[in-house]
């Protein structure tokens, strides 16, 4: 296996890392706009693009719950219950603040006082 000799992390080395990661951020974020005409020409891709936000938003929920351990006690019950209550409030009132405040209140109290 190829193993790089890892240099000690000096300020200059860190600067190189930061700049390379900056370049990779720029490339990944500008990539779709470089391929814009390709996306817009395809009927199928346009339709997929239309539905993609639904998919990504749903995946971001799962991603944001990454640290929850689902298969061991307490099985993420607190997270599930809080999210279900929040969802119910949002469906009922359609107001973001009214949804966030009780949801966060329940969660913060439970996490900081009872665990």
């Amino acid at each position, binding site marked *: 296996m190829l*193993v*790089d*000799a890892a240099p000690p*992390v000096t*300020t200059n080395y*860190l*600067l190189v*890392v*930061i700049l*390379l*990661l*900056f370049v*990779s*951020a720029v490339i*990944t*974020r*500008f*990539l*779709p*706009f470089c391929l814009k005409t390709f*996306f*817009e020409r395809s009927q199928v*891709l*346009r*339709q*997929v*693009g*239309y*539905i*993609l*936000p*639904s*998919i*990504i*938003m*749903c*995946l*971001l*929920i*799962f*991603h*944001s*719950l990454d640290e929850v351990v689902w298969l061991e006690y307490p099985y993420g019950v607190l*997270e599930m219950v809080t*999210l279900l209550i*929040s*969802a119910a409030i*949002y*469906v009922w009132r359609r*107001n*973001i*603040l009214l*949804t*966030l405040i009780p*949801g*966060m209140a329940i*969660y*913060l109290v439970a*996490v*900081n006082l009872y665990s």
Partner: protein
Amino acid sequence: MKTELPVLKKLSPAFTKAFTCSVPIFVAYFPLGVVFGLVFENQGYYWLLGPVMSLLVYGGAVQFLALAMLEQGEGLLQILIACLFIAIRNSFYGTSFFARFAKFSLISRIYMIFSLVDATYALLLTPSAVAEQDDEKYCLCLAVLIHIYWVAGTLVGAGFGSVIPQIKGLQFVLSILFVIFTLDQYFKHKKLWPFIVAAISWVVMQAVAPHYALVGAITLATICAVFVVKRGQVDVS
């Protein structure tokens, strides 16, 4: 959200709206930035480079991964490849804003594309109720504010992290926000299959490659969506 503070009335409606919408993101991104700054400083690096990294790299997952890999003495190439796998999900975000950003001036278009992170992407997709001609200003204010929260959090964490009390669980505001935005998507399209496809893709990718579950699941779900669309089960209005 209707929070009309008297102070905010003097400012433009686009900024006011962007600011109120961005408050929940502040709750999540600022403390996360503080934690990042703390870890950064604890690894013994020159503290000002922390905020510089947050400003230029601007991606929580990538930045934390890079720190962990630096600490383990991984080489430059390994760090770069691993981070690219995390960052590639941003490539999917841009596809939702072709038409919207095309109306912006060149400078704001470039900045908007660069600053399209998870929270910005999600907030920009919710209806803003800002006048059409104010949209560019609204988008810019929102993106800049979120960027500032992240950099400022890092600055505070790297500079004075040890005196800041830590509150557990603030990140959960993002989970609730994403649930809200997912519901918005459902109200808009009235379609369940994208969520089912997303959930299945997530479970599959958790089993196959848990470290890259998000980008893997987005890719897998997109491929599935192409097949669903090709079979003509979607009517796009």
